[in-house]
């Protein structure tokens, strides 16, 4: 078990190194001269060259790569062209919002998806089941920003239960609609996965034993079957994090939440490369970490799994 955890951690580290390398390559193949961007359009060539020298742009690529790694180890993501502040500071102010939206979104996926999955598996083939199938399918086919705008119209304007976007004092009420928007598709999808895995598990021998010894139906599902049936869902939550993260970034835009998505969006308007790449790097690292956590939770739920 310890060996498994260590090996997974090492793999995660490798993945992060890969992500950093790809980001490095992307940063340096973009047709923008960072020195020119910092100096401004009217700067003389000498000034541009001096800034380029300060940034180490005249050094060979491998040296720059090592520099890049070295600064990342110190949480140095460079300096914003437009705002002259450190990218790491920008990230630090915007990250909590994105994290909160991520967690509340995943909570929505599970809090909606699990009960719906249980209901559909129990009422297999009925109208409930069919209705949920349809909703789940439409959910997977709908971009999160459209879900967000529809929710905003319905529950922010027609029935004004929630604020019409914005962050306010950052209280939870500002996260309800955004979290539902990012979680809607996942909830439908996980409900489908849980439904089919529950149907499989309920057919297994140990549940026949449970039935035979008179365990009540409710306990059969909730106490005995659910834990095993949840395994594929947990694995999928980890695997889907990349797609999910994309949704989070867009939905921040719909609701004007000041997270990483908005940081990147503002940076895009002025082609502020260090900030854009800082956002790309941070979200990718999050996906790797999320996968790692899912892999660590998995064995806790299923002690039968052998680790190699």
């Amino acid at each position, binding site marked *: 078990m310890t060996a498994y955890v260590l090996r997974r951690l090492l793999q995660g580290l490798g*993945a992060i190194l890969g992500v950093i390398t790809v980001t490095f390559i992307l940063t340096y193949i*973009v047709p923008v001269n960072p020195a020119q961007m910092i100096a401004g359009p009217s700067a003389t060539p000498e000034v541009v060259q001096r800034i380029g020298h300060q940034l180490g742009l005249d050094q060979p690529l491998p040296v720059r790569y090592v520099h890049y790694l070295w600064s990342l180890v110190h949480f140095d993501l460079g300096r914003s062209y437009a705002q002259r502040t450190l990218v790491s500071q920008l990230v630090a102010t915007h990250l909590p919002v994105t994290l909160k939206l991520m967690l509340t979104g995943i909570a929505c996926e599970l809090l909606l998806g699990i009960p719906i999955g249980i209901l559909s598996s129990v009422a297999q083939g009925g109208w409930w089941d069919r209705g949920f199938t349809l909703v789940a399918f439409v959910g*997977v*086919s709908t971009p999160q920003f459209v879900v967000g705008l529809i929710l905003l119209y319905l529950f922010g304007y027609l029935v004004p239960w929630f604020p019409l976007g914005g962050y306010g004092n950052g209280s939870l009420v500002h996260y309800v609609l955004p979290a539902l928007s990012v979680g809607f598709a996942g909830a439908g999808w996980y409900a489908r996965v849980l439904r089919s895995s529950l149907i499989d598990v309920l057919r297994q021998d140990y549940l026949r034993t449970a039935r035979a010894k008179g365990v009540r139906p409710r306990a059969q599902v909730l106490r005995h079957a659910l834990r095993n049936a949840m395994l594929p869902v947990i694995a999928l939550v980890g695997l889907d994090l990349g797609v999910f993260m*994309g949704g989070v970034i867009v939905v921040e835009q719909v609701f004007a939440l000041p997270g990483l998505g908005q940081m990147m969006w503002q940076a895009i308007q002025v082609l502020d490369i260090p900030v854009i790449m800082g956002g790309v790097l941070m979200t990718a690292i999050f996906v790797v970490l999320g*996968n790692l956590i899912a892999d660590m939770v998995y064995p806790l739920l299923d002690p039968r799994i052998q680790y190699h």
Partner: protein
Amino acid sequence: MTDILETATDGTLEESRSRGRRSWWQRLRADRTGMIGLVLVVVVVLAAVLAPLIAPYDPNQQFSNGLSEFGMPRAPDGTYLLGTDLLGRDLLSRILFGARVSLVIGLVANGVAVAIGAAVGVVAGYFRGWLGTVLMRFTDVMTAFPALVLAIALAAILRPSLWIVALVIAMVNWVYVARAIYAQVLAVREQQYIEATTALGVPTLGVLVRHILPQLSLSLLVFATLGISTSVLLEASLSYLGVGVQPPTPSWGGIINASQSYLTTAPWLVLFPGLAIILTSVGFNLFGEALRDALDVGGRR
């Protein structure tokens, strides 16, 4: 001998015999939801192809009677069936022409993604060794990047145009194809007829193109259909964020982007393009899944 036993016991023989009675085409025809998907796909394709003929107005023309006396967009009525946008342009015409953007990008982006993914998957799966390891590790690293985030960054930096957007979407979507094809090639290359062709001295390229690729054609067909939905959704999100196809070219995401601040006063400007996106995506998803079931090949979600 053990091979034969294994084949016989895992039930594939029996299954394929019973399935063999009906052709995949018949199975596809019998799939009701799949046929609904096909109808949606046909409607969208027709809308895109026939847009210049069936659109009531020029999508980029600003009508003087297209705005109310307060300068607001007109709600759907007899003149403008789906209403007008902020600049007094006919929304129906813009949505019909927007179908062209969505479909062209969906088809091109996904075609390129399937081609890259297939090439990487086949090469990595067939040669394995260090080349395969490097290619698949690279694929793994690319899946860690949230597709949309990477696409936003790329599109923003490369200055979006129709083809750039399509290429960017292909750049982030090929990884899923590569993974699935890699796994399949690993299985296919162990089959005896591949061993036989190699023993007969067929050159490697010939083995790959003539003997391995045909085995994958059905999966690729399914990817080519299901992936369009993903590409259309990605394009819509990029255009919504303003890094997709640029105005005045009408795109569904772009229309929503431009009219978001009018959500409460002119909700149709968000609702109708949103519906267009959803119906297109549902159509390709339904049809793609039916195709996958009918052809009996695995694929992504």
